[in-house]
């Protein structure tokens, strides 16, 4: 029955694709565009809603089981039978995938609803929903598959959907390029991922989760496997995650991916697809927990990504670009948590981040909608009075991501910081703490420049600013509520005790069956206790917020002055630390030089040879053409002579 979770979106995609995107409806039924859009939107959203309800049903079933039994497996058919090696099309609904499935389907459903309003005037409405359903389908395969090849199928499928949706307005060359860039950069990561899968098969002789992890947990088996192999597997899988989840150095595609429609940015490039890497690594926790080297690499890259993206986000002026870099930075947090072995904390942040980042993106979509497709925050300001619902929900999202106490982001981020500190990654903890300040700073800057202060909106647009329709505001409100309350599913035990909620971390407890090795051992005695760490993170958030208010609310002239004082740094940050340019210089240009040389070689030498042969053949043919007289008797004669020659050869042999 689990299969229906993935089948509904597939059916939705097929229906939408065949009925509407193909133009069938328009031709055969003469339906007007309005009805067509409504039906198509309802089919797509309905499909995801059914998946969501089904996921919830299975989630409730899981809860009724014993914690150690919480796993539902359904085998559909044998997919690749090849000698000893078989891969089944097998779905698994366990605690880890249930969390992912719930996030994907419910947030996906909200974003589908939102899209009905957002895309209503778009010509490619049905095509959009087809792609969106395809995305949900593949994303669910990714998280529900019970073996690595199936995960890879989903992994590539969401890559495809992402490519299609980033380049959705492909008439705009730049947007089409952005789609292509995302695809190409992702391929680099996928290369690592598939190598990792090969490695796993090579070592463990299977690709099924139960077999692989079972062997990986078996000390007798593992004693024969060199530690460096496990590190290699971990690092190769991490390369895949780096590509899909936009970590340094492959994060460059994500900001460009904002070329797609905003709900897509919310669903794919903030809430779900980019977190696939985190899911994959949490799934493979046995490898990371057994390889300190891999963990160190993961944590370091994640920390570097988090702070790098945060410093870029401060200076960006495109509302979606700020959010994109913020996503990269937040993904860095998730990977830091996973890198230190605090998988539950990472996934907890994944969930809360899905809530508030989807909210922020949808809010920014609402702003863009109101501003007639203007995305530059320098041309906004004072929008709160015009679009109050968007403004309030956006503020909630901002505060949640900044880590203001009692909102969802506070709990999850705090847990990650605590995990970093507890496990002795002090330097990373400090970096993460600085990033907290930066996060609060750039998010408040975004909010203040967009919604507060004096209006800088051009007169031509001003008249048209309006609040979005209900189909858009309702998802915003729902997500805002989730952003506030979502954190309470994972209140840390020490806080829970104080307020008498629960004495265990519910989320961590629920997830624990899927986390096969729990190396949450705390290293030695620490200078700071839990409450002190909480104080640090609150302090960091407060510092960021205060700076933001000072700079963008009380002293609006200050930012420009600061920018001038530290001009090189400012410029570097504004230009994304020249990473794109660096890649262009290191990879793209030498490659295109190589290609040019190859092109010349091909033109002159290979084509020269081919054309020469062709020309020679043509001349020969022209000469031989005279033999084709059309006189049948001469053909007969030639045939007879040929037969005679063969006879001579046979006789004389």
């Amino acid at each position: 029955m689990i299969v229906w979770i993935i089948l509904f979106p597939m059916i939705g995609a097929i229906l939408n694709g065949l009925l509407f995107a193909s133009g069938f409806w328009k031709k055969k039924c003469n339906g007007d565009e309005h009805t067509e859009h409504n039906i198509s939107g309802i089919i797509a959203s309905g499909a995801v809603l059914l998946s969501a309800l089904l996921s919830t049903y299975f989630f409730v079933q899981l809860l009724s089981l014993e914690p150690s039994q919480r796993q539902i497996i359904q085998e559909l058919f044998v997919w690749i039978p090849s000698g000893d090696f078989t891969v089944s099309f097998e779905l698994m609904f366990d605690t880890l995938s249930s969390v992912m499935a719930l996030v994907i389907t419910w947030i996906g459903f909200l974003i589908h609803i939102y899209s009905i309003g957002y895309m209503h005037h778009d010509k490619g409405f049905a095509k959009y929903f087809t792609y969106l359903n395809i995305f949900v389908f593949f994303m669910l395969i990714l998280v529900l598959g019970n073996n690595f090849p199936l995960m890879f199928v989903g992994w590539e499928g969401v890559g495809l959907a992402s490519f299609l949706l980033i380049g959705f307005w492909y008439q705009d060359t730049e947007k089409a390029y952005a789609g292509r860039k995302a695809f190409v950069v992702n391929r680099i990561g996928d290369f690592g991922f598939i190598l990792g899968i090969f490695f796993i098969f090579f070592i463990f002789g299977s690709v099924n989760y139960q077999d692989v992890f079972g062997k990986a947990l078996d000390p007798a088996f593992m004693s024969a496997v060199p530690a460096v192999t496990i590190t290699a597997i971990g690092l190769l899988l991490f390369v895949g995650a780096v590509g899909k989840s936009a970590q340094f150095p492959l994060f460059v595609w994500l900001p460009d991916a904002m070329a797609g429609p905003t709900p897509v940015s919310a669903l794919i490039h903030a809430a779900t697809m980019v977190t696939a890497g985190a899911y994959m690594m949490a799934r493979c926790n046995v490898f990371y927990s057994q390889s300190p080297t891999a963990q160190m690499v993961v944590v370091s890259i994640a920390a570097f990504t988090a702070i790098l993206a945060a410093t870029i986000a401060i200076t960006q002026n495109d509302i979606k670009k700020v959010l994109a870099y913020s996503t990269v930075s937040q993904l860095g947090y998730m990977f830091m948590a996973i890198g230190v072995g605090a998988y539950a904390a990472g996934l907890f942040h994944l969930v809360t981040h899905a809530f508030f980042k989807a909210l922020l993106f949808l809010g920014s979509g609402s702003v863009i909608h109101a501003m007639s497709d203007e995305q530059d925050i320098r041309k906004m300001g004072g929008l709160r009075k015009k679009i109050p619902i968007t403004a309030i929900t956006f503020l909630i999202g901002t505060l949640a991501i900044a880590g203001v106490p009692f909102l969802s982001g506070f709990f999850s981020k705090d847990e990650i910081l605590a995990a970093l500190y507890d496990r002795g990654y002090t330097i990373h903890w400090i970096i993460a703490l600085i990033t907290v300040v930066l996060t609060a700073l750039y998010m408040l800057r975004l909010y203040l420049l967009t919604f507060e202060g004096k209006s800088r909106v051009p007169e031509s647009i001003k008249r048209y600013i309006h609040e979005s329709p209900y189909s858009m505001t309702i998802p915003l409100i729902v997500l805002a509520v989730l952003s506030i309350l979502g954190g309470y599913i994972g209140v840390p035990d020490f806080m829970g005790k104080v307020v008498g909620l629960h004495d265990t971390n519910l989320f961590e407890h629920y997830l624990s069956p899927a986390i096969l090795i729990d190396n949450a051992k705390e290293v030695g005695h620490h200078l700071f206790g839990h409450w002190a760490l909480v104080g640090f993170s609150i302090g960091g958030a407060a510092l960021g917020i205060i700076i933001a208010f000072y700079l963008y609310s009380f002293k609006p002239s200050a930012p420009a002055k600061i920018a001038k004082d530290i001009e090189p740094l400012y410029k570097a940050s504004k230009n994304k630390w020249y990473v794109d340019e660096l890649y262009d210089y290191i990879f793209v240009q030498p490659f295109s030089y190589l290609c040019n040389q190859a092109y010349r070689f091909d033109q002159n030498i290979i084509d020269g040879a081919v054309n020469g042969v062709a020309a020679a053949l043509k001349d020969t043919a022209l000469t031989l053409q005279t033999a084709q007289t059309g006189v049948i008797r001469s053909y007969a004669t030639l045939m007879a002579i040929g037969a005679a020659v063969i006879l001579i050869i046979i006789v004389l042999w």
Partner: protein
Amino acid sequence: METVVFYVFAALALAGALMVITFKNPVSSALSLVLTLFSTAVLFVLLLAHFVAVIQILVYAGAIMILFLFTVMFLNLKPDALKFESKHLGFKVSALLVILLFVGYFASLGFKKGLYLSNTSTSDIEGFGTVQGVGMSLFTDYLLPFELTSILILVAIIGVVVIAKKRAN
């Protein structure tokens, strides 16, 4: 006796064949062809192929030749329709050369392999060359090819009808 019959009818067959390719008038050629086919039928009898000999006369010398003659008559050829023949020496020379080669080859094949006719032993085989024998062979071992020839004939019939009909308009 057998030797005499062979040489007489072999000579007749060759003469007929030569006449086929030398006569100008198609009617004469056709009649010469009948002579050749008939002589061959006699040789078949010598080879104990009775059924095949009958078929040869009925189908070949009978039906096919009638078709030829019918067509020639039907066309009602004008005299100048036949006034063309090759004047190219080249064709004739090359054709003759080819002929010599074939004759030489087949002659050498026949003498080299040392195969001999086995009339006595062959006649011991029950039903050799009779309707029954050929029929058994045709409808057991060679049933599928036999049925396929019927399809071939059907296709030929349809083809002929199509070709003839088109030109009628």
